[in-house]
């Protein structure tokens, strides 16, 4: 994944809070993906304005860790969502 690309939720995907469990969920046709806190933190930043690299840096600063230690997991997570067409990567 090229880290200068800017991820954005696909148009048919909705991120919201499950009112029953208070957990974040990602909704798409016939699919409900329950997110953990980190996944949620990543996806709320996927608004088409931030690059993968800047999302990693933001999270590193928020979690008080280094960007390299997060990047593998973030890139893998976004890669899976891209495979499933849940996010798109803008140039």
């Amino acid at each position, binding site marked *: 994944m090229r880290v200068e690309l800017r991820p954005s939720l696909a148009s*048919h995907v909705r991120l919201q809070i499950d009112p029953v469990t208070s957990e974040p969920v990602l*909704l798409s*046709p016939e699919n409900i993906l329950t997110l953990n806190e980190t996944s949620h933190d990543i996806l709320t930043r996927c608004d088409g304005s931030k690059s993968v690299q800047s999302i990693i840096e933001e999270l590193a600063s928020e979690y008080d860790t280094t960007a390299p230690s997060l990047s593998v997991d973030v890139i893998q997570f976004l890669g899976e969502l891209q495979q499933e067409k849940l996010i798109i990567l803008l140039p």
Partner: protein
Amino acid sequence: MKFRPYALLAEVTYRCPLRCPYCSNPTRYPIGTELSTAEWRRVIEEAASLGVLQIGFSGGEPLLRRDLADLIAHARQVGLYSNLITSGIGLDKTRALELKDAGLDSIQISFQSDRPELADLIAGAKAHKRKIEAAQIANNLGFALSANVVLHRQNIERLREIVVFVESLGATRLELANAQYYGWGFVNRENLLPTREQVNRARDAVNHERERLRGNMEIFYVLPDYFEGRPKPCMNGWGQQYITVNAVGDALPCPTASSIPSLRFDSVRNHSIGWIWNESESFRKYRGEEWMREPCRTCPERERDFGGCRCQAALLTGEASNTDPICYLSPHRNIIDGIIDREGRHSVETPYTYRANPKVDLISPAAPTTL
């Protein structure tokens, strides 16, 4: 509460411009008038407060309801993700814009084949060209298009051509659903059931196309359960995640549950969705494991497949609490094998019994809409 409904299937009308011979609608429509706008709004609110996160607007053809945008807007307002499951007939630009403004999240359009003549023959209507136009309109408005194609004897050998056709429409998701033999599909099984060879070739073709389209178009393959040895985990368990409300207001644990003659269903006109989900006899009847007989009762697979499909057990063995006869452990598996040997063919020898519409004067609260 142990079980929670996540998705509501709203079959807002039984009317449809198509006459597909595998339609899962009942062959004998329940008598009554369609739910009104106000009644659907209440159902949507109650469903949301019960924990439902997704609503599918289906039918019949949901676009025949002039209040569809109103219902979608209402679903949006209470936080539901909405999906329109449509033939595409009636989805012109004005209508599509209206639905988008209402907050519709996704559109799924059915196709019958990649070949126009065959598609129209299967649909029993001149529909294919209009469906393509509808897909283009949906795409142009920025909807992520899903396509659904039901596979059966007449089109299963064209699987790869169908995938290429759907790809050319710009769809992001394709549901290839092997015909399920309920409702009109049960009536037409003899003219729909493929051969074992066709099914095997289709399986290879799906794997090949999935690999080719990885990351570009998701292919969801609904297995041909007659040809499987293990039953499908039908509805992820009876009354465990899904609720269907049909055109006249009956609430069902699955869209075809009315094919089980021993069950009666409660109406949203008389009860809240919450009461029906938690208390009604029909939802509790096959929930969990208490109802199971052998071989399900002690089978380690029961937590994964829930004993399969109750409707199928009822239709083929005469008793809904039997193990789904698809299962190789079922004492009734020979029924399925017999059907495949007798009815599985390459060609269509007799014409379809096309799906009929309900009598409009019995079922529609308003004048019928002409498309």
